[in-house]
């Protein structure tokens, strides 16, 4: 199963400047692993050493933050859109 | 709110009114801006008499007043170039 994943600007250097990529997987975890297989180095930017999503990065399935669903084990269905949204601090 | 064209009042028809706003010399859109500010200070159901001498205002002020939910009781020509517009305040629900 393929889902669309929106890649934030700071991580697009790892996806060949693609803002949107397709990854396979039935859960968020599987999608992250599928992304890592395609774009080496992406996972460590999103997850910590224990594989948990970092506290300044959020992953949304459609409009919902996975922290408030089932975290990394949140199941996905066809047509879901995943967004990775990191905190940004710029303002000057 | 749908309301037909405001009625033209004859010289001897004068609706009862509570307040008067004389804005001769004022042009649109300030004619309505001032009417609206005055209406905001009044109670629901009270009637405001607005005196204008800018011809487009006799179309624009009633139209805008109706758009905001008020009732226009009528327009009366009082001089060759002066009109009274009678507006009953209604709060838009």
């Amino acid at each position: 199963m393929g889902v669309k994943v929106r890649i934030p600007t700071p991580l697009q250097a790892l996806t060949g400047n693609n803002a949107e990529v397709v990854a396979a997987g039935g859960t968020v975890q599987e999608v992250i692993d599928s992304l890592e297989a395609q774009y080496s180095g992406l996972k460590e930017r999103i997850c910590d050493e224990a594989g948990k999503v970092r506290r300044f990065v959020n992953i949304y399935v459609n409009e919902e933050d996975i922290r408030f669903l089932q975290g990394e084990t949140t199941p996905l269905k066809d047509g879901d859109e995943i967004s990775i949204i990191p905190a940004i601090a710029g303002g000057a | 709110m749908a309301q037909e064209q405001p009625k033209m009042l004859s010289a001897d028809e004068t609706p009862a009114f509570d307040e008067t706003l004389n804005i001769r010399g004022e042009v649109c859109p300030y004619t309505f801006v001032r009417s609206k500010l005055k209406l905001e200070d009044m109670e629901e159901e009270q009637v405001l008499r607005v005196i204008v001498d800018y011809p487009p205002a006799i179309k624009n002020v009633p139209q805008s007043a109706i758009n905001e939910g008020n009732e226009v009781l009528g327009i009366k020509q009082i001089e060759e170039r002066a009109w009274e517009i009678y507006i009953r305040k209604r709060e838009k629900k």
Partner: protein
Amino acid sequence: MKKLELSDDQVKRYSRHILLPEVGGKGQRKILEGRVLVIGTGGLGAPVSFYLAAAGVGTIGLVDSDTVEVSNLQRQIIHFTHDIGKHKTDSAREKMEALNPDIKVVVHKTRVSSENILSIIADYDVVVDGSDNFPTRYLVNDACVLSGKPLSHGGIFRFDGQVTTIVPGKGPCYRCLFPEPPPPGLVPSCQEAGILGVVAGTIGVAQATEVLKLLIGIGEPLIGRLLVYNALEMKFRTVKVPKNPQCPVCGPHPTITELIDYEEFCSLRS
């Protein structure tokens, strides 16, 4: 309180606000009585403070410790070429007062810290975060939560922007969204990342819009929602931000009850 009478000049100046059914004279008076603190007079702070001045926000506080540099002028539209070297708060105040003599501009030539922030924000109704670094952003969030002040948060990075509105007690805070700042170096937050100048305008103007809605009490502010913008795609999306019951600062059992000065990540400042 005695009702503020609009002068003839004010009726004309604010006529396009007064004409709006949702604003009217009542809403304009609320704007004129409003007190807003803008933290940072840079990319976000410039459009925010300029538009709030135009709108007639009665008291606008500006916090910044920097001076105007030539590299600011590509986006910080409140500063002009002849202002280079001038204190940013002074430069901004001059333009705001020239634009609208109705308003009072209060300058705070300092950087906010755990020591001074609570006393600075105490005088204001709404706070706008236009700062440029994570330590300040978390400090501002925590201070606003602890003192119950509504906060407009905006962030920009290259072609991206984020906006959310925090109303303590009513919705989530920035820590519900991102519990902790990233460690130094992991997320670029400094000027080497670059920024398309107009993105600061887009996001700053969205923040100013939220401030006016809060002051007037109309519409649906971005409470519990994060607006995410990308200029290259020209897309705005919103995602939901639930209140986190384990939030360390606004949750029922807070672990952060005092302000924290996080370590500065970036030695370069713009």
